[in-house]
């Protein structure tokens, strides 16, 4: 881990919550920020953050991490609670450990990557964002998904793609079961290229040929 000497350091354990969030909102563009003192009860961390900055969180985070976020690049060293990247608009969120349910729910844009496990309802109602999970993923991934890409590198649980209307799911490994409206498609060159880019962005090594592509049978316009 780098020394935070040349970075802005915000320690939640030594600040009041309102002041902490106010300082986080006022971070100048292009700055690098180190956040520490957070825990799994720190809900709404970086919610609504709209600043082109790099945020490194050296701890855990609670629910709704980077909710409705824009522009910022966030790296979380600990675990995240439920609904990380909820309604994400742009920017990126990289979780080095595991996260809870509803990862990237309603994300309209941006990128969410998880190196550890992910709970149920991953990519719930995903609406244009990109989500990559390296380890095991729970059931009902991509439920209600309308657009965007969901990459699952270690299989998927039951009901993959339930009520899915659009978008693409890439899965490496076994799928416990998938919804009747979803079927496997042939991997095209464009899919392969897209997948390679997403894996590279998440810092995950992998061969696109090992993945299978799933899409809804009738795609929404």
């Amino acid at each position, binding site marked *: 881990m780098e020394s935070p000497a040349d970075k802005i350091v915000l320690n939640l354990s030594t600040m009041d919550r309102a002041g902490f*969030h106010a300082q986080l909102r006022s971070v100048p563009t292009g700055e690098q920020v180190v956040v520490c003192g957070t825990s799994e009860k720190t809900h*709404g961390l970086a*919610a609504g953050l709209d600043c082109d900055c790099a945020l490194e969180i050296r701890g855990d985070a*609670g*629910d709704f991490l980077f*909710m409705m976020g824009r522009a910022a690049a966030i790296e979380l060293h600990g675990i995240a609670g439920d609904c990380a990247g*909820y309604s994400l*608009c742009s920017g990126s969120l990289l979780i080095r450990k595991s996260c809870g349910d509803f990862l990237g729910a309603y994300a309209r844009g941006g990128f969410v990557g998880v190196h550890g496990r992910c709970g149920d309802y991953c990519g*719930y109602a995903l609406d244009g964002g990109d989500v990559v999970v390296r380890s095991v993923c729970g059931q009902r991934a991509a439920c209600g998904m309308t657009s965007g890409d969901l990459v699952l590198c270690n299989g998927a649980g039951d009901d993959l793609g339930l009520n899915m209307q659009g978008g693409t799911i890439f899965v490496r490994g076994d799928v416990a079961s998938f919804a009747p409206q979803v079927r496997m498609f042939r991997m095209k060159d464009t899919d392969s290229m897209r997948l390679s880019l997403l894996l590279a962005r998440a810092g995950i090594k992998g061969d696109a040929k090992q993945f299978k592509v799933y899409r809804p049978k009738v795609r929404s316009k």
Partner: protein
Amino acid sequence: MTNLLHELVLAPCRLPPEGRNTDSLQTALSVDFQALGSNRTVHLSTPWILRRWADRSAVPDWPELCAVMHKFGGAVVAPAADLAAVDVSHLPVRIGPVCRDTPLDPDEIGTADLIEFDLRHASNKRWGWPVELESEGKLFAFIEALRIAAGGDVPVGLALPLNCQADELRKVMQSGADFVSLVAERHDPMQAWVLRGIRAARESCVAEGMPDLPLLLDAELDSPWAAFVCLALGASAVTVDAMLAPILAQQTAQQPVSGMLAGILPDFPAAGRADRIAALLDEANDQMHELLRLQGVRRLGELSPKCLRAVRPDVARITGVDQL
């Protein structure tokens, strides 16, 4: 069908401590909202909220209507885009509606004076908990995150049906919401369940240790007396859509003046309707002040069911108000 409002009367007045009559009593109709953990207060001078008519496509003279609501210190439940045509000096307090099962819009949330998260489906208006908020503590975390995303000092409330179960209402109150909107989904004339519902909601607030939690009531209140009854039973602010409906529904105001009159009275129709609404709200304010004075109370928060009396035992039983 019996109108319960006709079976309720004012309770005998309590004399104020400083005088023998209440004519000189200074009364206020204001309602304040405050976000948890913030010192900033969102102030409404009157308890009037425009909700169902808050649609610029339905009301051609919408900017004038907003100006009237601004003048009277009321609030409008409307998306930010609906206020784009309104002069900035005439902007009323905006309650930003946020629907479940849709992605949250940062611009919508970042510009609202109050945020109302509707627990009803946007399409069919059936209510229920979104699957991501069903688990224990998730609603609390969501409201906290929403508040942070909005800047930390914007009150966040939840909208749910007035006839929801007591447990659900309790769950909402324990979620840290800064206000609760109760929507009477069946828009029929004032019925027992509306009066009983708002009374029960206020009692739940008291039981949960939040006696001053603002409760916004969306019901078919077509007169200042109906509004007063609901405010006495526990509401903090009420919708005025039904009161304004007769004026807003007049199609003549939407038709441009033609012929010779077009050059003489180009703005007459719009101005006329806005003026009539202003006059109606002015009269409603006067009546509310008068009712408060008659009860010897200074502000709406001091109203209680004890300010009312039921003329019949069955009405007393239905509304929970003492019998005359």
